[in-house]
């Protein structure tokens, strides 16, 4: 199946000379949730802005649903909903008016029933007649999502939607995202919260310094780059790793108080049983054993560091 969003060799240099994107290529499949991770200034927002038509590209092409975002902007932009990073709202408008305005802007005839459903889904229904300036930050964020959903988009961009949002609201937002995905909407989100990406995304893209460092299926990424570590706390400290254990590639930490063993969960044999037997044979007494799996955060930090 052709990708719903296809970015090819995209570059952007701002008037100030800052090169925000350096030849980015990326395909996004219909119906998936793609999380774009990257430090501040990596180019995430610029990439989204070009796809949505807010910023002109310096080079390269983008298609959405097979249509070019420049020459066929009416078709592409009608398909896209955008939730920006900044909480930008018309302070003096009511929730209902601003959401209806968004629908009209996207060329759709008024449909109060749909607006009502969107507002109810986002728990905004009882605020529909309130002015935006009367709302809390979290509510404004939901209004921005409602605006983006007002015209029934097929592709939804969420630019750091949970920045500054409390835990409850964050959870309810991800419920909305799940429901959208179930209805077939493609979702691209950027986030600083890596555990969020880990929990919700199908694929992870890492961007830094204007370049895509990798795009990979989340599960594959975790198993490829994710390591597991066995930590053995010792009853008596060691000076060195004993000769008999040299084949296990152990490292000694904490003033000889603990042994660290890295292993690969996807390998046929992890070597744990053999290691523990060898430890017993060497007469080493154990105090405690624990394992730790590297999180997406560790992977992310590693990729960004390696990409520099």
């Amino acid at each position, binding site marked *: 199946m052709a990708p719903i969003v296809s970015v090819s060799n995209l570059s952007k240099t701002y008037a100030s000379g800052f090169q925000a994107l350096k030849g980015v290529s990326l395909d996004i499949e219909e119906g998936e949730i793609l999380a774009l991770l990257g430090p501040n200034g990596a180019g995430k927002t610029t990439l989204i802005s070009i796809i949505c038509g807010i910023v002109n590209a310096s080079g390269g092409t983008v298609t959405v649903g097979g249509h070019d975002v420049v020459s066929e902007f009416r078709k592409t932009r009608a398909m896209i909903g955008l939730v920006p990073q900044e909480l930008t709202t018309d302070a003096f408008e009511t929730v209902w008016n601003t959401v209806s305005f968004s629908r009209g802007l996207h*060329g759709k005839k008024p449909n109060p029933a749909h607006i009502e459903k969107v507002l109810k889904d986002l728990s905004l229904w009882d605020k529909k007649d309130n002015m935006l300036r009367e709302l809390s930050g979290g509510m404004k964020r939901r209004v921005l999502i409602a605006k983006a959903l007002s015209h029934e988009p097929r592709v939804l961009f969420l630019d750091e939607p949970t920045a500054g949002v409390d835990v409850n609201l964050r959870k309810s937002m991800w419920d909305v995202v799940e429901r959208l995905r179930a209805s077939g909407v493609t979702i691209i989100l950027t986030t600083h919260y890596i555990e969020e990406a880990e929990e919700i995304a199908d694929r992870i893209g890492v961007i830094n310094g204007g370049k895509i460092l990798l795009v990979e299926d989340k599960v594959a990424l975790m198993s490829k780059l994710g390591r597991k570590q066995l930590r053995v706390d010792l009853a008596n400290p060691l000076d060195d790793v004993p000769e008999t254990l040299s084949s296990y590639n152990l490292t000694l930490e904490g003033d000889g108080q603990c042994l660290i063993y890295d292993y690969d969960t996807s390998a046929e044999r992890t070597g744990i049983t053999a290691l523990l037997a060898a430890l017993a044979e060497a007469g080493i007494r154990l105090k405690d054993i624990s394992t730790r799996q590297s999180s997406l955060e560790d992977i992310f930090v590693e990729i960004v560091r390696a990409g520099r």
Partner: protein
Amino acid sequence: MNIEAIKSIYFFEMARTRRTLLQSVVSPVISTSLYFIVFGAAIGGRIQQIDGVSYGAFITPGLMMLTLLTQCIGNGSFGIYFPKFTGTIYEVLSSPVSMAEIVLGYVGAAATKGIMIGTIILLTASLFVDLTIAHPFVMIFFFVLTAISFSLFGFIIGIWAKDFEQLNLIPMLVIPPLVFLGGSFYSVKMLPPFWQAVSHFNPVLYLISGFRWSFFEVSDVNPIFSAAIILVFLTACMSILAWIFRTGYRLRN
């Protein structure tokens, strides 16, 4: 053509006018009434007719132009500057609307508001002085084209302005002198020859003169020149806008 979008922008802008009804409608009515009291009743009573027109009536077209110009520039510039300032412009830019449709929405609303207020001033004036409009269609031609051109001009200022000071610079500092020195309250024929010549470099003189001709058939310059000037100004604004849209100047860069 994304008619829904044009309608959305237009009515969104008009809703802003409704919210600020006092400021947008009542204040021009009050200030016009003050002009009529000061210039029409107090001073105007001591002034003979100008070109056979009573002074109160004579200043009416100029007063309408003064308000029309400041209102249209103000509305046109604020309408596009405010979303730029708050950041809500992202939505318009990421919508399936062409720049021409954006202009139709914003400038249409700004011009409509200008025309509404100009009409209110005309009605207010008719309470103070006897007014006849000799050439209603010519009057509407000048009235509407001036509203559209200066709303477009305001829109350009709104895109160009980087802060509120720049936004107010032209409407506050440039337009009032041009209007006052453009013969709003006098005929330039009353000026010494040197200043008469200088006045002819003021484009607003042509607007006021042509507009006044449509009321009283008296003018400082040939009304054909006036019509030409407004058409040139309209074309110039549209050309600048076309360039802005092509390059994404201060919007998509």
